[in-house]
């Protein structure tokens, strides 16, 4: 009964199919294996010379190609579109002023789609297929980590414009955002100056907050500050009742906030709801910039603090020009923020390096990079040739009712970048 319910032709078909399948399988496998064997032998002998793949950058004409790689779709598009806008502005300005070494910039634009794997893929495309002289972009730490091996293997250049968690210094990447000693440590310095003794740490669950908080813990121990709590919320988490309960129960007199994106809104609304205020328990945030304030709601964050290296309100002639140019191109309502400024600066720094080197060649640029300066909107920045970061001034800012952030404290001049915190005794053993 059971077997008769199965279609009759099956058994003979399957046995015949098997007899045919095996040879095909065997052939396919053999083909694959033989291909591997041959190629591998060749590969082994060729390995030594394979690093430093020959560059295909074409500098013979009167233009030179550069690549912009930002997420224009997916969750990071909100932030990265602003960086792309300011990169476009910088390219336009440079071209209007005569280009780089007399060559006009030709931008090849790509979408990273908010996925690290896409960043790696597009980086390879820009370098190997489009033959760009340098790539500008990336935002999340994971996108940078995904691109790093590509740039090192192809020996190309990436300019990365966002503050990040430090502990990295690739010869093929220039980091024009802040490293930890230019943002996190000044933020803690400020809290210490204000006499805060009990700090609560809250962050999104990813690399930057965890690394930042590791540093803060070491800093606190050396400076007599007590860390009364350390909480992480999954990215996109929107229920902060429990975390704010813990915060309130801890008796903290300040909060260091490394939350990302949407989570900030829910956090600050909850913070306000349970009756906490910026006067009694100030929150220092490192991921809230001008364009996020509107989405969080000014009334929820007015009076709270941020730590960055640039605000739209920074008072300098370069910044006035930059803000005016940006608003002229993209509209009065668009604010400028730290990552946008760092991206704008990165293109100008690359121009400075190329002109100092007199060449678009990667090795020549690496050689010439040390000491290249640019009068950026944030103040004068200088490239450090050893770790490829730049010296930047740190500002603590206060969010005001008009949605802008105003500096209330600044460091004594530009801070030398120290991605591995080698200059801080208390940070020993962190990396």
């Amino acid at each position: 009964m059971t077997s008769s319910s199965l279609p009759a032709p099956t058994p003979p078909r399957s046995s015949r199919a098997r007899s045919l399948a095996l040879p095909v399988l065997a052939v396919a496998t053999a083909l694959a294996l033989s291909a591997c064997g041959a190629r591998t032998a060749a590969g082994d002998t060729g390995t030594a010379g394979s690093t430093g793949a020959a560059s295909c950058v074409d500098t013979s004409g009167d233009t030179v190609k550069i690549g912009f790689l930002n997420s224009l779709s997916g969750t990071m598009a909100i932030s990265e579109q602003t960086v792309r806008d300011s990169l476009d502005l910088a390219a336009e300005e440079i071209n209007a002023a005569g280009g780089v070494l007399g060559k006009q910039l030709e931008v090849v634009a790509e979408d990273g789609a908010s996925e690290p794997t896409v960043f790696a893929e597009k980086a390879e495309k820009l370098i190997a297929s489009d033959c760009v002289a340098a790539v500008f972009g990336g935002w999340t730490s994971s996108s940078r980590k995904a691109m790093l091996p590509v740039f090192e293997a192809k020996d190309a250049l990436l300019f990365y414009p966002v503050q990040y968690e430090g502990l990295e210094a690739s010869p093929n990447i220039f980091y024009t955002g802040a490293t930890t000693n230019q943002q996190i440590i000044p933020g803690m310095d400020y809290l210490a100056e204000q006499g805060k003794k009990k700090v609560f740490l809250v962050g999104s669950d990813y690399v930057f907050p965890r690394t930042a908080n590791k540093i803060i813990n070491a800093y606190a121990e050396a400076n007599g500050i007590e860390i009364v709590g350390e909480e992480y919320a999954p990215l996109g988490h929107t229920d902060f009742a429990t975390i704010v309960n813990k915060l309130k129960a801890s008796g903290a007199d300040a909060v260091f906030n490394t939350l990302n994106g949407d989570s900030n809104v829910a956090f600050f609304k909850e913070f306000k709801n349970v009756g906490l205020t910026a006067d009694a328990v100030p929150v220092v945030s490192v991921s809230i910039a001008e364009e996020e304030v509107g989405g969080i709601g000014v009334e929820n964050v007015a009076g709270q603090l941020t730590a960055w290296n640039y605000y739209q309100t920074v008072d300098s002639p370069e910044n006035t020009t930059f803000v005016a140019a940006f608003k002229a191109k993209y509209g009065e309502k668009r604010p400028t923020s730290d990552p946008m400024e760092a991206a704008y600066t990165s293109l100008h720094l690359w121009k400075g390096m190329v002109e100092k080197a007199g060449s678009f060649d990667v090795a020549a640029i690496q050689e010439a990079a040390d000491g290249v300066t640019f009068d950026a909107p944030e103040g004068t920045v200088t490239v450090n040739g050893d770790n490829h970061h730049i010296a930047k001034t740190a500002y603590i800012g206060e969010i005001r009712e008009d949605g802008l952030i105003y500096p209330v404290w600044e460091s004594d001049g530009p801070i030398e970048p120290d991605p591995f915190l080698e200059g801080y005794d208390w940070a020993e053993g962190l990396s």
Partner: protein
Amino acid sequence: MSAPATTAPAPNAAARPWWRHPRVRVWGGFALAAAVLLGVAPVVLSDFRLNLLAKFLCLAMVAVGIGLAWGRGGMLVLGQGVFFGLGGYLMAMHMKLADAGPGGVPDFMLLYGDGVVPAWWEPLRDPVVTVLAILLVPAGVATLLGLAVFRRRVRGAYFAILSQALAAAFAILLVGQQKVTGGTNGLNGFRSFFGYDLADPVNKRMLYYVAAGVLLVMVAVVRLLMVSRFGELLVAVRDQENRVRFLGYDPANVKVVAYAVAACFAGVGGALFAPVVGIVSPADVGVIPSIGFLVGVAIGGRATLLGPVLGAIAVSWAQTGLSEQFPSFWTYFQGALFILVVAFLPNGFATLGGLWRRRRGAAVPGPGDAPADPPAGTSAHADDPGPDPAQDAATAARTAGRHA
């Protein structure tokens, strides 16, 4: 109990020219695919494009498994990212350990962790253990979850939701354990793959050949499974689970096996994805990528042999090409594909081929179609385990009145 006449190919076989014989068509298509993948593609594509194709092939491996579990088994597997991720992370862990050298500590653990390799990482220093783990761990996890769900006869829809929640939970877990998993950054910066330098373009080509070979093997395995008694049972379980139970079989076992095979394929796909792309991160395992795997399968034809492969490659290729020019358009396009294909072409573009043949009056089952897809119209329960994508137009017409 006797099968409808349309499902028995025997009467037609004699009248049909040899090149239209299903077996010839299937293995002919297979040979063609092998020739294109192993012969043509490496010659005409640049290193960059070939590596891109290798990445698509890894995604296609997941699709082959989904074709088996979903197309044939009717299980809507919404959490394949978990198994893809398991395979990818296992391989990545091995590569990180191998890069660190004997007794060494992977770089990210020094930076973000305690600088100590956890005990459960240690076995993966051994390449043999790694390969075994890649083959067995995803399949093992799937077996456990499958037994838990199918044995208790949890509804098909519940299974879909649970597998989706599993993907969400797995991604959160990976992110949360940064010291040992690399957190959101995932694992990256691999230098070698079983001793071969990954910066060398020749070895990248070798990886492509491995991916192509593995994919072909998987397709062959699915074909062999489908024409075996297991394949018949699987389709029967999809269409009439209770009837199979009454016949004395345990549908749970059949489903678990198909689910485990799909998981194993996804794991292998992930394991090759890591060296090909150079990174594996929680972004590759969550809810969204897990559903993304289904698009290609739906488009290519979930119940066909080569459909999922072609669909997965086509979708990945379209995404790479289209998202460059029109990032926002791509999202609309992807959404529209889901809507149009699933709602109106439940058997993917393979349906179009079938319609075309039918219009020409040739009542030949499509290539790779299971020989017996009994009509599902006899059931009136709203909570049948799954759809009947292979339902032909005639059956659909017969049953259409029921809910009109």
